[in-house]
């Protein structure tokens, strides 16, 4: 190959090369960017019934009236929705993680409280995370939880039995065709290691 024409064309050529090398590098990064993008995507489309794992703030006129019905927004027409609860853990008959009520009839726009019971059967301190999921997934954006054990990791002493409350309400603009929703919690437990031991 003649050296002269090559030298003349070198600059645009190497610029192209740099672009061609940079592009795959950017796409590699894009692969990782897909994860936050996916979360946004899930939030918009309700895929998998994923939740934002942080408490929502709503105007609680927090006078507890009854065990289940906490408060209600007046003046907006609300409708009835059946909300089911189900739970799962690694070994369900051992951990005995159960909802207090298998289903509630709730009115939209009103706040309710229910709880799940959990028993640590092992003789070690356990730490667990709860992963919530709702079906149909799109309903996730209408369920507002003000108090939930899924917001952070929980620690359970050996043999301890707890009742874990969930305070929630369904937004008033919940579409009318959602007649029945199911809220599922899956518990993943690991032996607790206090922060002092973490490297």
């Amino acid at each position, binding site marked *: 190959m003649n050296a002269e024409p090559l030298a003349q064309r070198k600059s645009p050529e190497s610029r192209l090369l740099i672009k061609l090398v940079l592009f795959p590098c950017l796409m590699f990064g894009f692969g990782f960017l897909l994860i936050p993008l996916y979360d946004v995507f899930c939030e918009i489309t309700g895929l998998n019934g994923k939740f934002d794992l942080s408490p929502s703030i709503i105007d609680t006129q927090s006078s507890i009236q009854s065990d289940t019905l906490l408060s209600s927004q007046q003046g907006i027409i609300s409708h009835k929705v059946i909300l089911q609860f189900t739970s799962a853990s690694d070994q369900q008959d051992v951990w005995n993680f159960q909802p207090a009520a298998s289903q509630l009839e709730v009115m939209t726009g009103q706040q309710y409280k229910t709880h799940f019971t959990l028993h640590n059967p092992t003789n070690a301190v356990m730490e667990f995370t709860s992963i919530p999921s709702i079906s149909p997934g799109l309903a996730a954006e209408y369920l507002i939880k003000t108090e939930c054990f899924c917001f952070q990791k929980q620690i359970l002493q050996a043999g301890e039995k707890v009742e874990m409350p969930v305070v929630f309400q369904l937004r008033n603009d919940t579409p009318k065709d*959602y007649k029945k929703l199911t809220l599922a919690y899956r518990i993943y437990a690991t032996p607790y290691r206090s922060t002092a031991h973490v490297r």
Partner: protein
Amino acid sequence: MESILRHLRVNGFSIRLLILMAFTSFSHAEWGLNMTESATAIGREIHGLHMTIFYICVAIAVVVFGIMLYSIIRHRKSLGAEAKPFHESTVVEIIWTTIPLLILVAMAIPATKTLVAMYDTETSDIDIKVTGYQWKWRYEYLNTDVDFFSTLTTTQDQMHGLEPKSENYLLEVDKHLIIPINKKIRFLFTAQDVIHSWWVPELAVKKDAIPGFINESWAKVEVPGIYRGQCAELCGQGHGYMPIVVEAVSEEDYQAWLITQQQAQKSANQVSKLSFDELMAQGKTSYDKNCAACHQVTGTGIPPVFPALKGSAIALGDMQKHIDIVINGKAGSAMSAFGEQLTPTELAAIITYERNAWGNDKGDSIQPAEIVSFKQAQGQ
């Protein structure tokens, strides 16, 4: 002499097998060619949609291949055909872009309608939570106590050709999923370990069961009958061995079944004392059904993934450790926790069998009652 007899018996089996094979291949008049007819309205709609699209595809193929075949036959050099070097026509290009587009719109309209109907979120009559396990299904009827596992019953001998294959080979389970007809059943899917997919063709329901998350689908079966399906997502070596059997019955039969189930559920933990021979006999049956897929009928396993039980330290060692691993499984391995999947009687039989079969000859045994107390001790 004995070996000759055994040999003859095997031969007898293989002859019967051959006859059976010949018979089945002749009697298979229905070489299933098309999508399964469905027992639900949605399923029939899907079937109709499938047929419509199929006919459209056939029509397209006939036109395209017809023209092609015509020019292959007529425009060949050996017949003296002269090439007409036309190579562009904007009008033609526009026509054959527009027509497919219109056909696609015509396809999309019924498809959208069916899809919207499938996503109906109206309330349901019965809700069943379906959990995929490696490699079995668990069914929980929400708002009742009914909760059971459904496991393949086809024997290892059938799979390995040592006995003739039953009619519903690989599509038979110990406990059917019983549902009433003409009721809207809402299925909630999740999985314990890896992704599974619950599929019954006649119900036109296929949904992935994803660990940690929940999915839903529904069916309203109109015709009573037994409908069989399989796991549709690769979930490990037992993927082909976790069938689904749905039995649609009348409302009265369903209610009666529900009551007997609830009673059975209560009495499941009531146990009686069994002799060593009874334990071994039941142990073999339960072991072959629940354990042999990995640890093998001969107890030799498939090391290193599935360890041998024959001569293993656990089967020949401390009884409590043995009970513990069977009931609680081994974290991070394929060994699942059988404590919730099997009854105390089955667990005791399996453990006794593992300690005494294949020349393990440990000589000890365990009673179902001890399993119950082990679980109670664990639970407190």
